[in-house]
């Protein structure tokens, strides 16, 4: 994307200076204060049209007629404002005119704000001019007509490190630039001779003309959307529908896994900056692909140092256990064990189980199929067997310590744990395991967060955030994503094995995989093809950026994954089986095989 400073058209506005980069620089030098427009001047929307935002919101909330509703509401809000003698509308006023349940309306409104923020592309030339004015000690302000309001503009500026700028936004001031009144208010604020104030705007007939009419010096900045011939399209047509029928694994990687991973990484990049994260930890399951994309695409994302931590919730829970808290973890150890043979409760956490004849003596022989009636006996056995289990726990804890220690992070360093969990359980386990061992400020970055009770409890107690939350998408979509979390996880899984533990190996750490299960050759090949497809997408995405396209909002980038949920047949059969497979509840006992 490029933009350019163009001269004012002397034919349209008599007496206007002819400005190039140097001229603008000189104009700023001569001015006592500089005001900038917002949309079209400092920032552009990375969409083909403003209405595209409404289409995106409609998709996120599964409301096909939302775009029309939204436009009608805006018209009605304008009408109501005129009747009420107001000069400008507000976003809240628009949403008041939408015939929606108030909670939903509030949620979509927040999503619109968030989306608009995501869609903003800074104009490098205008931003550079603004920074120059600040550096020269000029007073800088923004004068803009927008119903988005001052808070929105402040957030947008904040994302680009531009704070403490005086804002004159029409919806807050109830005055507009298009009528010229907003400039009068700004002059009253500045207390400078009008000719000492330079306004840089994009709309020759609008704010530029009005500013000149009010006696301000003006400069016309012609951005890309003013007919400069440069493309501002997103890298991919994100709204393109997925083809019907089964997708070959490579296509699945290219069309879904790749975009979803890129969207997630784009979101992580922005969030890590906001949280001042100094290290990113991608953990199993799901972190494999993300970490690989980052490592194999240097420079594509501006991220803090990253590592792949081959642990999982199971590994972290085990690392947190000791002889004093063991009983507290019994519910975790026997969770969803019904249907398994007793020994499998140990095998699934990587603990060597006693021989069948020994288990029989505990009345927990291989012929026993676990059910709630057996739980007391199983708990009793696990408690007696706890020191064998705790050996594995200590192995995990040692390895986790070694891994974190090798990162050489100072106490209190903010780090982000990236995982594909949906309720913060992995983050909670990770933080609990670190407690008393390594002092870090842990943030949790998830692909999605559900609104269930456990998730909310953890969100209150910990620093957790996600790409997909119920503030950005309809709860129904979030629920669908959660219900299909295994498929989502598979798309991010560059490996076919599940890490259930950690083991220190010399100076390094390796993941201990669940040796009970191995993906067959066909599934392994399918996963490999899917990863190849994702990698190919990332290469094309990088090439698109180089060619001047812009990044779409993270959620939009990842949206093909949501589309996929409506097309379960898109998964090839072996991948579907792999996605549906849950090693925590799967039994290798003959009764299951039968």
């Amino acid at each position, binding site marked *: 994307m490029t933009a350019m400073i163009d001269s004012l058209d002397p034919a349209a506005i008599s007496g206007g200076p002819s400005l190039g980069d140097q001229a603008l620089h000189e104009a700023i030098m001569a001015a006592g204060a500089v005001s900038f427009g917002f949309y079209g001047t400092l920032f552009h929307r990375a969409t083909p049209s403003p209405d595209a935002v409404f289409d995106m919101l409609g998709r996120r909330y599964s409301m096909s007629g939302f775009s029309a509703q939204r436009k009608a509401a805006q018209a009605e809000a304008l009408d109501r404002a005129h009747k009420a003698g107001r000069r400008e509308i507000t976003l809240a006023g628009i949403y008041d005119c939408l015939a929606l349940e108030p909670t939903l309306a509030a949620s979509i409104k927040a999503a619109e704000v968030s989306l608009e923020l995501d869609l903003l592309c800074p104009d490098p030339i205008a931003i550079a001019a603004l920074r120059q004015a600040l550096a020269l000690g000029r007073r800088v302000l923004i004068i803009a007509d927008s119903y988005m309001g001052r808070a929105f503009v402040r957030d947008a500026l904040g994302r680009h490190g531009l704070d403490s700028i005086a804002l004159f936004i029409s919806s807050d001031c109830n005055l507009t630039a298009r009528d010229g009144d907003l400039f009068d208010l700004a002059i009253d604020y500045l207390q400078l001779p009008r000719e000492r104030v330079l306004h840089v705007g994009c709309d020759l007939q609008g704010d530029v003309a009005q500013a000149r009419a009010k006696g301000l010096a003006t400069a016309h900045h012609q951005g890309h959307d003013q007919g400069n011939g440069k493309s501002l399209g997103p890298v991919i047509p994100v709204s393109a529908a997925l083809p019907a029928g089964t997708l070959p694994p490579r296509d699945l990687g290219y069309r879904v896994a790749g975009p979803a991973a890129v969207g997630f990484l784009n979101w992580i990049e922005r969030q890590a900056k906001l949280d001042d994260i100094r290290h990113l930890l991608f953990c199993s399951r799901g972190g494999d692909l993300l970490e690989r994309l980052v490592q194999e695409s240097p420079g594509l994302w501006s991220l803090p140092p990253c590592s792949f931590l081959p642990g999982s919730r199971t590994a972290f829970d085990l690392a947190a256990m000791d002889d004093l808290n063991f009983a507290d973890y019994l519910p975790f150890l026997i969770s969803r064990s019904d249907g398994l043979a007793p020994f499998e409760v140990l095998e699934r956490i990587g603990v060597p189980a006693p021989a069948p004849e020994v288990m029989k003596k505990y009345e927990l022989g291989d012929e026993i199929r676990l059910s709630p009636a057996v739980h007391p006996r199983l708990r*009793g056995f696990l408690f007696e067997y706890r020191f064998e289990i705790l050996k594995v726990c200590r192995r995990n804890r040692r390895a986790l310590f070694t891994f974190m220690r090798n990162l050489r992070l100072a106490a209190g360093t903010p780090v982000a744990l990236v995982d594909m969990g949906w309720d913060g359980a992995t983050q909670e386990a990770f933080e609990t395991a670190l407690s008393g061992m390594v002092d870090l400020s842990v943030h949790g970055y998830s692909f999605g967060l559900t609104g269930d009770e456990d998730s909310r409890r953890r969100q209150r107690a910990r620093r957790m955030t996600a790409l997909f939350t119920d503030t950005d998408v309809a709860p129904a979509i979030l629920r669908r994503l959660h219900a299909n979390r295994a498929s989502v996880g598979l798309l991010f899984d560059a490996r076919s094995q599940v890490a259930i533990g950690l083991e220190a190996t010399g100076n390094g750490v390796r993941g201990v995989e669940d*040796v009970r299960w191995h993906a067959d050759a066909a599934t392994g090949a399918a996963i490999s093809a899917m990863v190849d497809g994702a990698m190919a997408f990332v290469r094309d995405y990088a090439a698109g950026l180089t060619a001047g396209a812009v990044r779409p909002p993270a959620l939009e980038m990842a949206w093909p994954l949501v589309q996929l949920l409506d097309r379960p047949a898109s998964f090839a059969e072996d991948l579907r089986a792999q996605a549906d497979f849950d090693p925590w509840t799967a039994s290798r006992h003959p009764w299951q095989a039968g």
Partner: protein
Amino acid sequence: MTLSSKPAPHDEGDAARILAERDGEIASLTRTLADRDRTIAYLNQLAGERGRSLQNTEAANVALRAELTQTYQSRSWRLTSPLRWLLRRTFQGRASIATLLWAFRRRGPRATLADVRRIRHDHGITGIKFWLLNGVAPGGAAQGEPGTDLASTKGALADVRGPDGYVYRAPRRPADLEARLKELSTTFSIVVPVYNTSPALLEAAIRSVEQQWYPNWQLVLVDDASPNPATRAALEQPRDPRVTILRQAANQGISGATNTGLAAATGDFVVFLDHDDELTADCLYELALCIAAHDPDFVYSDEDKITEDGRFTQPFFKPDWSPDTMMSTMYTCHVSCVRRSLVNELGGLRPEYDGCQDWDLVLRLAERTTRIQHVTKVLYHWRIIPQSTAADLNAKPYVVSVSERLRADTLARRGLKGTLEPLPQLPSYHRVRYDIRGTPTISIIIPSRDNQPVLSACLDSIRARSSYDRYEIVVLDNGSREPATLGYLNRIRAWPGVKVIRHDAPFNYSELNNLGVAAATGDILLFLNDDTEVLTTDWLERMAGYVQLGHVGAVGAKLLYPGGEKIQHAGVLNLFNGPSHAFLRQDRNHYGYFLRNLLEYNWLAVTGACLMVERRKFEAVGGFDETLPVAYNDVDLCMRLHEVGYYNVMCQAAELIHHESISRGLDFVSPEKMARLEQERGRLYDRHPGLFLHDPFGNPNLHPNGGNFEIA
């Protein structure tokens, strides 16, 4: 038995032939009768021995019972009964208070309360009593978590639980066993010398090999001319083709028979199995994994014992390779797996050490290789039978003398001078007392501040009791202010062999000692707290004898609480909660786990309250870390010595009194001190990540926080 009937002779030639055949048959039957007579005589002898043994035991029992009854009925016993009760209660009260104080100090009041609640929850009131008296939560068989029916499962295990509560749980074949076996190629020859073995026990031993998960083995059974026909008959049974039976023409003893087996062995590694013991089913598999991972020359494992009624008991969870422990006791014992080429290089076992032939082999092989690995799993069941050393070393008195001779010969072979000393508490066990080489100066470095009475007692004890007089004393005065102390320091400054270095700066134990080393002239350094008093006269030369060994790093001494009966330090264990003193407040003569409190074992760390190290080794690892000013600086030093390959030793025979923390106060008294302790512990493991939750001289099968080597 009957003579075979034959047809009537037809002529003289036939008659002669028939007579000759009959003579032959008669001779054969006579030999059979003689064999049988010998067997009967042998069995009679056995029966007689057993009978006499039973009679002796019974007589001893009767005598003891009578003596006991007499004692119980005596007036003095009855009169002193209240006193005994009082003593018992006093001891329990003191132990409980000491436990509470220790817990408060190390864990803080809140964590201690939480611990007590947890112990109450896990083990009931009896658990709390156990904790108060022993200082650790009960391990092993717990009474169960509420809401479980552990009681019934415990009942189900009653038939296999040993008399000490230990239960061996045979492992299940791993889910990926077949895949892993394909990656392993080591071949093993299991050599078993057989002599008069009960068929049932021999069968059990053979079966334990046949049931191995790992398939690449050869079993070599060498019958050492067993007179017992049942043994011979058992060996005649058809076997797996991997089993080789060899028969000695004459009895050659265990080494001779084993060497015969070794000559027939073809495996990469030799595994020694006694004829009445058993390998666990995973034994060879675990050995093969270890060999594939580490390429060792010698591998040993943990072991337990089988009682006469077939239950498992007395597990020995061993330390990793410990050369000095090896000179104190044959701790590697079973299972023992040696690269066959190395055994051959060493010439096999030596009959002159029969009874300790395996100990001799390990001592000799350790002089050829450092590639020694320890598998921290029970891979061997050693059967307890009367007259076996598994039951009692005293059961074979000759073994005691062989063990003594063996080590004396080892010292000579290694060019070392020393003596074997019987333990006063257990005379059948011996420790090595190495002679000090030359007359090196030992620099005793003592930091102190405003502590005149304690310091003077310390110096007085050194001067009055040390039999070795080539020492100097370097006192580091950390800015004393009290006139009495300053006067005392001025006085001792004039004493020969005493230096007083003033360093008026905030307390930093590491810095003080490093300054002391800089001022010292000795090649041997001894860091000593000022609140100690020497008890053992030859403490310096005894410790120096060890510290001069090329492989030894730090040497520690046994420290006792005032009164000299209770242990303050007998070695430092690196437990789950961090470094901790072992056997704390146990009786001075407490045996400890496999005599760890009496014999010289290698430990990961010893306390800096009395720590000896050679200057060259101290300087090679950079001295004390001055970023650890108060806690764990001694442990850090020991860990660094360990990491560069030295072995630290606890010299249990060198004893001192330690008035612990009189000088500086306890570290739990303020949150700031607790926080500092935590911080320094964090720094310790940051420097030694490989030792986080790991003590090579402990064992993961023991309780993670058990300072007394409690079985978990």
